[in-house]
């Protein structure tokens, strides 16, 4: 929080530090960030600006049906332009640039006007409403989630909507406390770390430490061993993988996100849910202040997105009928924001920490299209609603016609 001590005594403009300082208000800066991202993307991909299109044909309307599937991947622990869509960041996202941008639509100005904490921001993404609960509280979202709309209105079974989330704190993200929806209508939530913690005896965690790390804002590992043996074996049956195989495979992985993607791929093979939400979280290692680990995590997330898309292409249940959405939950503080410490945190609420992007790829989605009008992160749920054919009545967002 901004204090009253002087943190900005020197003139930042005088040394040309603040890339967009001369743009003025936060909304002006958000626009400038978007323009910069758009210009960069045009430079590398020759992308077409959406503004150049006079109208949108209703491609999606012809293809909506029971076969439609969607996979949403969020980069929990947001990324900044500096390390992604600016020239120096290009080396960190080769798969997004090569495999996604030319074949998909990118929104270059996705603004999150809510609380910039990962759990509450993810809750806002899944409800389409800026949730306002304590980020560290173990509570369900107040408003109906996308999973509840999906299941209730389309009469889908519980097996058709799943969340794979990185942190033990995300255990209640699958369904809301809303009176008209709530218990029994949400998505199943798998917390791979909790599964692993339950699968590995407490005295044999050596070699798994890097997978069990939970909350990067509080670096001490604090497992919540709330999974019973029965639940563990049920989950093993569901995923068709033995506890022993799960543990053994986990040992070969480097990070919690790799474990999440492994579990997500098992889910896709065994249950083929139509709505699958995967929250990556490795990037949030930035809170430790180690730039190199933050960069490693962005590169890993980029690679994992490609792996997920490859899995979509490979699985007959998904190939040719799946739309993939990739978006950070929000950004991180700018280098020049006096109240922050650059990439390390997302505490200032400055335009950089609020403005991010979204890539959409799949059948019917326009290729190589750059949309630089401002949209909000709450627009995702109505877009999924239009894609599947349900009405997210309580959502405050608006469907994005550019990908429908």
């Amino acid at each position: 929080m901004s204090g009253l001590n002087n943190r900005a005594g020197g003139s930042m403009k005088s040394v040309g530090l603040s890339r967009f300082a001369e743009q003025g208000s936060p909304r002006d800066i958000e626009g400038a960030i978007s323009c910069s991202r758009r210009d960069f993307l045009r430079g590398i991909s020759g992308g077409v600006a959406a503004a150049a299109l006079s109208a949108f044909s209703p491609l999606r309307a012809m293809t909506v049906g029971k076969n439609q599937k969607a996979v949403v991947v969020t980069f929990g622990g947001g990324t900044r332009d500096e390390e992604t869509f600016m020239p120096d960041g290009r080396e960190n996202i080769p798969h997004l640039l090569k495999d996604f941008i030319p074949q998909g639509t990118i929104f270059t100005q996705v603004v999150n006007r809510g609380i910039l904490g990962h759990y509450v921001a993810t809750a806002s993404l899944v409800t389409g409403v800026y949730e306002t609960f304590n980020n560290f509280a173990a509570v369900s979202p107040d408003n109906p989630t996308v999973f509840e709309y999906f299941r209730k209105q389309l009469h889908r079974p519980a097996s058709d909507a799943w969340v794979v989330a990185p942190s033990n704190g995300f255990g209640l993200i699958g369904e809301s406390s809303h009176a008209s929806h709530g218990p029994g209508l949400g998505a199943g939530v798998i917390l791979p770390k909790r599964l692993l913690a339950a699968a590995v005896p407490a005295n044999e965690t050596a070699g798994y430490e890097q997978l069990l790390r939970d909350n990067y804002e509080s670096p001490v590992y604090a497992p919540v061993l709330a999974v019973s043996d029965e639940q563990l074996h049920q989950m093993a049956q569901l995923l068709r993988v033995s506890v022993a195989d799960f543990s053994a495979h986990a040992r070969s992985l480097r990070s919690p996100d790799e474990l999440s993607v492994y579990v997500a791929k098992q889910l896709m093979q065994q249950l083929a849910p139509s709505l699958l939400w995967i929250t990556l979280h490795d990037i949030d290692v930035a809170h430790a202040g180690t730039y190199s680990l933050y960069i490693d995590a962005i590169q890993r997330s980029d690679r994992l997105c490609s792996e997920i898309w490859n899995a979509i292409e490979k699985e007959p249940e998904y190939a040719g009928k799946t739309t993939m959405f990739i978006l950070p939950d929000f950004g991180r503080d700018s280098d020049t924001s006096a109240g922050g410490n650059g990439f390390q945190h997302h505490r200032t609420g400055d335009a950089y920490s609020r403005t991010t992007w979204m890539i959409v790829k799949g059948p019917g989605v326009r290729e190589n299209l750059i949309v630089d009008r401002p949209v909000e992160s709450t627009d995702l749920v109505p877009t999924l609603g239009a894609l599947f054919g349900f009405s997210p009545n309580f959502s405050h967002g608006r469907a994005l016609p550019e990908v429908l």
Partner: protein
Amino acid sequence: MSATPLRNEDFRSYPPEAQVLVARNLTLFQQLPRAFLMLLLREIIAYDWKFPAERDEIERQLRYLGSLKTQELANALSPFAKIELSPELEQAEWISNPSHFSERFSAHLWATHQIDGFSEAAENYIAAFNSAVPEKAALASRLGLVVIGREMGESSYPLFRKLRSHGTYFTAVDRSSDYKVLLDVVADRAHRYPVPYAHWCIYGADAAAPQSKQVASVSYFSLSSVRGDLIRKMQGSSASHLGPEAMRTRLAETDPAAVGMSGQNVDAVLSHFSVSVLSEGAGTQIYSTTFVQWTAREALRRARPLTLLAKFAPRQTEESADEELQGIQKKPAFDSQGSLIDADMGAYYTWINLQRLSGAEDSAFLAWFEGHNEALAISRSLAAGKECRDKVSLAEVLHRMQSTT
């Protein structure tokens, strides 16, 4: 949000000098909106352990506020007065523990979408008081020196990429250049400008510092036992499932004496600073590169030094840090490649933070990769965005910067 009646006895838990400051300004404080006063008290409660520059800033604020007529004061602080508190916050104890209250207040501002308005109000207020009661000009131009330790090893990583457009990039610095050259510069400036806490040496490992009372020296190595105590405190909080916010609050409440930093020979101001770096900085307890970057940032922000030397050393690997946090580490393993990237970013951030201080346009900055050929120097006397391939010693680079050092 209305002003609150206050009495001297409400501040009995404050340290002695802070109590005197409060007593002297109680009438003024009674006119301030709570959202504003709470933040001011967060600074005042630690007044006894503040650096001279911080004390000066608090006193300038009080002079500025005290100089305003009643209506002017109300107008200046009206954005703070308009902030709405929840009933719980209205009832909460805030005078004796303003830091704890401010955490809850911050969460409230975010949840009620008042954070942007509050940030804007704070920025406008800072600009107004700095304009009305300006900071005194620095005694000399400031100098920032960042050393990337030779232990980082060879790498193809493009060093100083973010700094190059601001200064001259030297690519043929004599590899045998001695680090002692920089220590001599610090010692010389400390001798010429003998101001308390105006000259700093910050180390990611253990290193020799100039033997001078005028040089504040902090190292990751020398704080090992304090780090250990804080990590154990974190483990205790974790075992109690207190949650990240409560853990942060508990860490921030750490008294230096509780982690072995007390006694007649201990500099109370510096020990409070060191503990705050380790208890309030994320990652500073386990990664030496983070420790150096954050310590340099905090030293620049708080002490506003004339000279700052920060030397990065290899940090431990992520796996090794996990072992340390769990209390099962036998011997740390180091990540020299990752540390180089961290240190490079740390150098950039140190320069940015130097630029935030008064007199930034006259300051000078050097980042040097010890034992290698690369250095980046920024000063009025050097061209920006230029690469220099001359074979030069470190002393020669300093000489070329000298018009501002």
